[in-house]
């Protein structure tokens, strides 16, 4: 595995430098349009950061091939946010200082988006984000545009699928106590209330637990006939899944995206067979997602996931919006983005609402003996 990673890294290095080489050539001719990207190059999320860069660069290449933006080639300026809050504040402020950057890609981690939000408001330029905390688009910041469905939708989709499609009414909710897990758990709980099936168990756990026996036993004791989860880390998910099966719990399970992520499937193996997950990116969900999947595989020799899909869409949408607006003025770009209807993206069909949320539903996928299979898409109109 070491060797394969090295080759992979070498290939990526070429992939990374190529646009710069091309970019600098373009610069020699005339100005380029610059898009800034705050991404974890170091820190715990470094690997995901790499995939995000891959997605963004893939989109960049496609946009440039199709003629660029406003007649010029697009260039990506990357800053490391170190996967920390102060890190992203510093990274963003470094990018913000470059006045020729017209738009930015922010973080997939909501707490990082919160941290940089004041600076985004001050700067007044559009920032594309992947974080799913619903508050991010409801705090009066008009410059944040979200490229993944927020957690209020994931909760509703899980609830909808479990209650209406699977027909299960007695829910046990297991969620991490971090930002993501707590918000997700809350969203799921309230969605279930609305559907008339309030949860019989709402169990939080702290990340990096080594043992989930108490949680599994609580699920067992609660008499639930379906399990809804929000897990942040794959280790925790793997240990929980195994212990769940060991202690004889076989009820259907509909979880947040981590449940069907590549690393979870690898770690938990058979323990996750048959589980359902909501996934913002599912390769077979639409033509656009299939096309993206193929292009990504051709370029990087591996399957994509949501880490690379949303930056791909962000670059694509931002470029399209600037072209539509005919200018790089922030207000005009914002108008153009909000005007987009039924814009096909790898993550789904974008219809931006006034808050800046582009997606309003999730795909439901199933782990069929190790392969992730697309089931259906559930969308909401609000």
């Amino acid at each position, binding site marked *: 595995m070491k060797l394969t990673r090295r080759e992979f890294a070498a290939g990526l290095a070429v992939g990374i430098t190529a646009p710069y080489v091309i970019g600098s050539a373009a610069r020699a001719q005339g100005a380029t349009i610059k898009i800034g990207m705050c991404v974890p190059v170091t820190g715990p999320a470094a690997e995901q950061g790499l995939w995000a860069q891959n997605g963004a660069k893939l989109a960049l290449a496609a946009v440039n091939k199709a003629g660029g933006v406003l007649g010029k080639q697009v260039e990506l300026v990357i800053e490391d946010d170190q996967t920390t809050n102060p890190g992203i*504040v510093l990274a963003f*402020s*470094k990018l*913000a200082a470059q006045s020729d950057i017209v738009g930015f890609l922010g973080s997939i981690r909501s*707490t990082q988006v919160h941290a940089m939000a*004041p600076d985004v408001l001050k700067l007044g330029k559009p920032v594309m984000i992947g974080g799913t905390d619903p508050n991010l688009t409801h705090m009066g910041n008009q410059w944040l545009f979200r490229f993944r469905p927020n957690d209020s939708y994931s909760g509703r989709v899980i609830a909808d699928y479990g209650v209406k499609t699977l027909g299960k009414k007695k829910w046990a909710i297991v969620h991490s106590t*971090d*930002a*993501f897990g*707590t918000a997700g758990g809350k969203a799921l709980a309230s969605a279930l209330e609305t559907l008339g099936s309030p949860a019989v168990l709402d169990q939080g756990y702290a990340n990096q637990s080594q043992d989930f026996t108490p949680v599994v036993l609580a699920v067992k004791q609660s008499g639930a006939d379906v399990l809804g989860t929000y897990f942040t880390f794959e280790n925790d998910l793997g240990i929980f899944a195994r212990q769940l099966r060991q202690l004889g719990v076989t009820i259907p399970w509909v979880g947040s995206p981590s449940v069907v992520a590549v690393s979870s499937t690898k770690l938990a193996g058979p323990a996750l067979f048959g589980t359902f997950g909501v996934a913002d990116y599912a390769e077979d969900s639409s033509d656009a997602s299939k096309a993206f999947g193929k292009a990504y595989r051709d370029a990087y020799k591996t399957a994509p996931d949501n880490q690379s899909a949303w930056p791909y869409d962000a670059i694509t949408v931002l470029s399209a919006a600037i072209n539509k607006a005919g200018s790089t003025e922030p207000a005009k770009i914002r108008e153009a983005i909000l005007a987009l209807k039924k814009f096909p993206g790898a993550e789904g069909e974008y219809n931006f609402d006034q808050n800046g949320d582009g997606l309003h539903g999730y795909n439901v996928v199933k782990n069929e003996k190790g392969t992730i299979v697309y089931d259906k898409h559930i969308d909401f109109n609000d």
Partner: protein
Amino acid sequence: MSAPSDNMPATVAVSREKPMLLRHLPYFIGAAILVALAATVQVDGYVHNILMQATTFAIAVFGLSVVLGLCGQINLAQAAFFGIGAYVVGIGTSDYHISYWLCLAGGCIVALLAGAVLGASTLRLGGHYLAMVTISFQQIVTLVMINAIWLTHGPDGVSNIGRPDLFLSAQAYLAFCVAMLALVGYAVWHLADTRLGRAMRAVRDNELAAGVVGVDVFRTKIYAFALSAVLGGLAGGLFAGGFAYVSPDQFSFAESVVYLTMSLLGGVSSPIGSAIGTGLLILIPEWLRFLKSVPGLYLAIYGLSVILIIRYMPDGIWGFVSAAIDRLRGKAKAPPAASALKLMPATVGGDIVLEVTGLSKYFGGLKAVDGVDIQVRRGGVHALIGPNGSGKTTTLNVLSGLYKATSGKILLDGTDITELPPHLRTAAGLGRTFQNIRLFRSMTALENVEIGAERPGNTLISGGDAALTERAMEALTFVGLGSRANELISSFSYGHQRLIEIARALAANPTLLLLDEPAAGLNSTEKQELHELLKRIAAQGLTILIIDHDMTLVSEAAQHITVLNFGRRIADGESMAVLRHPDVVSAYLGTE
């Protein structure tokens, strides 16, 4: 010693006479220039954020330089205090719309209390145990920050944190922070020279000796922790106002380690070192952003550097630099001349200065001291002798409070000191020296003796630093080392170190002086000098209780001898008679 107030620990350095302020004018001018620069020079958002981070972190690291550098207590919870200050300001301004100043003060108070509680845990713990308590405290605070969502908003963090109206713009706020940094830096810088600072350094260098010399060790440690916590809380409050958003992951154990590393890198004992370390560790990662292309590589190098710094530059960069400067500057300056030492031991009680009845100390089944009675008459020299293992040093340790007596009573000048901790016995008039010399190694001879002179209840110093120095000089001159007062302990020979220890005890003007094997390790000339010194001390009316093996010294110097064997008193009386006593002879030489 007054407790430090809310957000201005500068009060510990309060009694400054005019000339001192003028002397330090350059510092204030420099600080004013920095503040002006911060307020006026336009920098882009990136540099501004870095400066904000550096400024606030530096204040937190100053806190570490107090508790760790000055007092020698390990504190791995500084990030928790930082977080407490940040959250109080965050929640107060964002949720309850309370004024920023009140919140900042509140944050400092909460942090202060938390720090005092943590300091209280040092009562019975030190070293690794203390490290574990601080780590546990840190972890619990982080857990509460994450899980007590009703209070802290949990992992979402707190946004829209307010700022004082006076400093709303980024520029003004930065200038405000720099001003705070300068003020706090000044206070911490001069803390070392205050009474509390000296007490802290004594505790760091030699805790046992510090207690015996009159320092309330436990209280000093609590102050150290409280000060460190206040600075952490203040820094956190400033940080919250600066960045307008805080979340639990910024205040974890990993951050505490970062502060510790910043402190070590620059030099743990001085605020200058803290500032250097903070600056470097915030700027270097920015300069080395390119190194971060391989995940983990930067942090691996970071970990390696910690090891290397500890190994090769234990005093940090500033320690290294200042040591070099000191070497270049050459010998220490000559101290002022002093008048003759006055020893005025109390004459409150009657004839008997020290009355020990039925003293016992058992270690489990071992009876180290078993029902010993001693009466030490005022004035003159009383010796306590006995073969090895007879319990002499144990008796001395019980007398000075380092061990708790199993039973028995000790009366010093009529005051019952049996239950008192060491520093209170010193306050009552007891002084002692140690068999294995316990001087404060990082300080000069003068500073060592000054700490001795500072003992509570010393009526011979009128107050103020000048009187303290004068008294210390008198004591040093008395033992013949006045001319070398400003040299570090390490430059003195063993025999001279012993004399300094005696001077330290004398400077406190004790009623009874306990000498634990003062002649050990001295050559015959030095022993002669010691004998002369003892005579001079006794001539001023101070009572001496001496333990020693050197029979010549004992027989010549002491008028009265008590003999112990196997923890029991086997003889007591006038010197010559006791030394000829058959029990004593057989105890030392064995029976046929």
